[in-house]
């Protein structure tokens, strides 16, 4: 059934010019005219994107799209979330079914080249790991020789795990599913000894298990997984907006602007804060949106730290330490160019 969908998407590429279904280069205009942003997210990734008990989408990747919607419409509700599996996501983006992907997608060279995509930045620095049942007594990934490993198809995960076992001259049996729920169900049933995924994805998978406490993440990190929002190539205007929304979230955190104090901060005399919040300069206009874009984003969605805390902090079901995703000023890798 998924294949039918992909055939349909391929047909869209083929008939694109004829049907007008292909997104035009002017994505921002198209989004404004449509009145809603089409955001591709993971279907069931607690912490990143999943529907809550009321059916509202929540998560780190979801919040980024809400911030982008605020930048464009000044309204975090003007987003239509499209759940896409790892396998479907790129065809959906290429064919214009969504305006962007904000769905634990790794920035790689082939995606930047042969897939015709452009990454807005690294919203989340991650790496691939393994999760096993504690009862196995496995302490390191290299001990997994001969194990059955469940994972999702259409991912970098699939390639990294192959490289890892090949370079270490050990073997494994891949069990590949399309949906993350199927991966966790198969692991739960004992079909496989381990799940491999981005480590953040594993934390997200873990809460879906029947007995989360019985499983543990191995310490190994076998790859670099810079995750971030991604758009189609050839539309520099929309690309610039997506990039700067991410940077605004970081700059707001760095400058101490939060949803609670944003209005207060707008009265600040600090020129950096004034430029960020649009009381000085025409930075928003310069990229085709309102000048108070960042102020509204922080007020309505929060800064990077607030978004991170909401989804991965102490009170959230999925808990992931900030680690490499701390600001550069605190020893992390998150670093945004200045607004000036």
């Amino acid at each position, binding site marked *: *059934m*998924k*294949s039918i969908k*992909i*055939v349909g*998407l*391929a047909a869209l*590429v*083929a*008939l*694109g*010019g*004829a049907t007008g279904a*292909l997104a035009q280069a002017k994505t921002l205009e198209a989004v404004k005219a449509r009145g809603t942003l089409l955001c591709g997210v993971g279907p069931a990734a607690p912490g990143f994107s999943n529907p809550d008990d009321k059916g509202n989408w929540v998560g780190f990747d979801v919040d980024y799209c809400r911030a982008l919607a605020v930048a464009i419409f000044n309204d975090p509700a003007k987003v239509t979330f499209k759940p896409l599996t*790892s*396998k479907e996501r*790129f*065809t959906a983006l*290429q064919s214009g079914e969504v305006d962007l992907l904000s769905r634990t997608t790794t920035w790689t060279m*082939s*995606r930047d*080249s*042969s*897939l*015709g995509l452009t990454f807005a930045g690294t919203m989340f620095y991650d790496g691939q790991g393994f999760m096993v049942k504690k009862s196995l007594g496995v302490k390191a990934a290299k001990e*997994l*020789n*001969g*194990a*059955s490993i*469940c994972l999702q*198809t*259409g*991912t970098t995960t*699939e*390639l990294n*795990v*192959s*490289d890892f*076992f*090949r370079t270490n001259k050990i073997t*494994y*049996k*891949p*069990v*590949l*599913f*399309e*949906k993350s729920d*199927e991966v966790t*169900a*198969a692991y*739960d*049933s*004992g*079909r496989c*000894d381990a799940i491999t995924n981005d480590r953040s994805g594993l934390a997200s998978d873990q809460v879906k298990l029947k007995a989360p406490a019985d499983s543990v993440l191995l310490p190994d990190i076998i790859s670099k997984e810079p995750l971030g929002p991604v758009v*189609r*190539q*050839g539309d520099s205007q929309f690309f610039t907006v997506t990039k700067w929304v991410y940077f605004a979230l970081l700059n707001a955190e760095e400058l101490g602007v939060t949803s609670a104090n944003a209005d207060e901060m707008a009265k600040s005399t600090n020129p950096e804060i004034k430029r960020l919040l649009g009381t000085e300069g025409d930075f928003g206009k310069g990229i085709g949106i309102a000048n108070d874009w960042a102020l509204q984003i922080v007020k309505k969605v929060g800064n990077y730290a607030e978004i991170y805390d909401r989804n991965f902090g102490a009170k959230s079901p999925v808990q992931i330490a900030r680690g490499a995703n701390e600001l550069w000023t605190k020893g992390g890798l998150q670093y945004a160019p200045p607004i000036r």
Partner: protein
Amino acid sequence: MAVTTAGQTSSQEAAKASFLYRPEVRAVIYQLILLAGIVAFFWYIISNTIINLRRLGIASGFEFMSRTASFDISQTLIPYSAGSTYFTAFMVGLWNTVLVSVIGIVLATILGFIMGIARLSSNWLIARIGTIFVEVLRNIPLLLLLLFMYFAVLKSDLLPQVRNARELWFGSYISNRGINLPAPIFEPGFGYVMLAAILGLALAVGIGIWARRRRLLTGQPFPAFWVGVAVTVAIPLVVAVLMGRPMSFDYPVKGTFNFTGGFVLSPEFLALLAGLSVYTASFIAEAVRAGILAVSKGQKEAAAALGLAPNQALRLVVLPQAARVMIPPLTSNYLSLTKNSSLALAIAYPDLVAVTGTMLNNTGQAVEIILLTMAVYLTLSLLTSLLMNWFNARIALVER
């Protein structure tokens, strides 16, 4: 003279005018217009695709087929590793599809015949079992059935975990990692055994032909089928013993995580095979029932009057005639089974669609890969149809 010329001209004009009105000419013109339309349509689509792909910055062409795949596949019937090419990966997927389809077709046919005949049985219980089988399976979406077959079986405690794998016969094991069987290892001299097997099979066919001829001439029955089976099994067995058993087995051995050695029928393969077979069998059962009902009652009565037992009447009189009615729906069920096998990914079986899905994601070349995949399914379908049409024609001749 003038009159005749005038007459000639007008008749020529009439001929000219009516030229376009002649049905043969019109037919050709319509065909040409249609052809031009189709060519223009495809030309438009193809050029459009190329332009769009270029504009979107997506790679195109088939060169990627010779690049390294660098992903693993869990079931490979031909030699494959992550270092193989995309083309080899594609072939692995193709063979996996063929494997599950061919075995599925055989199983579905057997089960379908049993259930279709059961539904017509005069035994109340057997008939009810047939009806329930058909009505339940036919009305469940196949994807649900597959997910049920796979996850329900895996999650239930029906199958032990690998560590507690249950030993079956001849050193084979069953667990939630599948069925591990000893793999035969052929040693020198096994060629003779193979030769003997071929000889046995040929002999069995010979016996079949002879028995048939004799029955047609004299009416004497001969258990050709069972004798044939015995011959096919016994001859190579005798040769194997004489040659000092030129075959040994690689037995599965419990390792840290999985069995090593032997070969494994994965839960994915078994669930897909079971799901496709029973689902298709429910449709085949109906085709079989319809075929049998299409044979007039008089035939059965005549067979009974000739003193044939009910099962002989069914086998010798009813089924051969019913076959003609059954073959066309049977063919379309075989085609559906093959195409339905593309749901495999939902339960992690690496069929063609699953493998090409990974290829598509890594290369981004959706158009090329989908065209190739469609070409494969089209070819498989055409081959199945050809085979069935040939079989149909044969049966039609035999009937005369």
